[in-house]
């Protein structure tokens, strides 16, 4: 994300003060709500998207109740592979699993995930930059320093994505983000389904992020776009987006379950040996 120069595009070149600009309204396709139209923004739109880490959503779920996070930890069973696209998706998945383990305050699960991070970084050829973070995760787990572990997981993911982008592997960097988002969202849907409420379900209102991932896949090189996992993720994300856009009056429990099922199926495929 901290790349220079940023890839921005000019929508217009007006230098009028924003306060003198009325937000341009357009009819939202599904709700009739007057929405701010960023395309009509009189300035530069930065097209980089920062994808929230799972703990941003988890922290709200904690405020709304006390989820049993230990129940949400999944055993990570990763195939040995040299497929860098799959490895990148798995890396994102594993880091998101780390956030779940931190939420559960499960020391051993965090350590297992720390070791998986080392294995995946080695397979991706990024161990040199990742090892300090992985070691810090293992050390902090011994001290039950959950805040530091969260920070290290966030830094680990950023380090890997930055390294990939420096190596002109922006597609793989997106795969890391997508793997992480899918695992985080799967966990969120699981918690919401176990204790459904409109406030909890509203956390799934993330169409901009899903559109960002779909658009990122659309811009990928042919070999990445046609990778079986990426191609499936593209289809799955379109289903998820339709669910999100259809939830005009809020998400139903069935809608939440469907999103979770789609995420889980994609995560199973990512961890399959094919």
């Amino acid at each position, binding site marked *: 994300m901290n790349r220079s120069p940023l890839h921005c595009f000019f929508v217009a070149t007006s230098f009028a003060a924003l306060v003198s600009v009325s937000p341009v309204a357009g009819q939202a396709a599904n709700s009739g709500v007057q929405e701010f139209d960023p395309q009509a923004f009189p300035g530069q739109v*930065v097209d980089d998207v*920062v994808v929230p880490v799972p703990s*941003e959503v988890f922290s*709200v779920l904690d405020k709304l109740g006390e989820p049993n996070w230990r129940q949400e930890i999944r055993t990570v069973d990763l195939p040995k592979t040299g497929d860098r696209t799959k490895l990148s998706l798995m890396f994102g998945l594993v880091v998101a699993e780390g956030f779940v383990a931190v939420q559960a305050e499960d020391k051993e699960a965090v350590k297992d995930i720390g070791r998986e991070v080392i294995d995946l970084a080695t397979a991706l050829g990024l161990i040199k930059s990742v090892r300090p973070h992985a070691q810090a995760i293992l050390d902090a787990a011994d001290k039950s320093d959950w805040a530091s572990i969260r920070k290290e997981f966030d*830094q680990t993911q950023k380090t890997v994505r930055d390294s990939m982008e420096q190596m002109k592997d922006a597609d793989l960097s997106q795969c890391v983000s997508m793997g992480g988002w899918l695992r985080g969202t799967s966990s969120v849907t699981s918690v919401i389904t176990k204790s459904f409420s409109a406030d909890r379900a509203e*956390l799934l209102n993330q169409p901009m*992020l899903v559109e960002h991932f779909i658009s990122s896949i659309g811009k990928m090189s042919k070999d990445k776009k046609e990778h079986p996992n990426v191609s499936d993720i593209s289809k799955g994300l379109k289903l998820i987006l339709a669910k999100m856009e259809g939830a005009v009056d809020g998400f139903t429990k069935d809608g939440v379950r469907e999103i979770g099922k789609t995420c889980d199926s994609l995560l199973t495929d990512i961890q399959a040996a094919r």
Partner: protein
Amino acid sequence: MTALLTGLMLLLSAPLSHATIDDAHSFAMEAAVPFVEQGFIVREDYWNGEVKSGQKLMVRHQMFKGNEYAFWLGTAQDDVTFELQVLDETGKEIELDFKSQGMFATVRVNPPKTGTYSVVFSLTSKKEKGVYWALAYGYR
């Protein structure tokens, strides 16, 4: 935190004539220090770049109702005037407590709904045509 402050002291001792985008991020992180003391978690990812003085910029960002957010806008130049606003999907301003001091500006946000928000900002320099900037955020 110690590392952040150490880095910051090194930065403050550096001449501004060699200002970089990284310096802009360091000042955004300086702005974050009191927020961290209040329990905000700083995200590692951030936006940055160089922009024409006075040019409006916008980033779109996902926020979750129930969290409080803070945005920290830093620059590498010492004569900059900041504007920083957060708009909801209808274009209504929702930020609280805008503060600007030296090389950075901050706002806090309590998103009324989960969804996409637009962070709109500009940096105006009296001396420079181009301005380095970095926008970071945190939540609690």
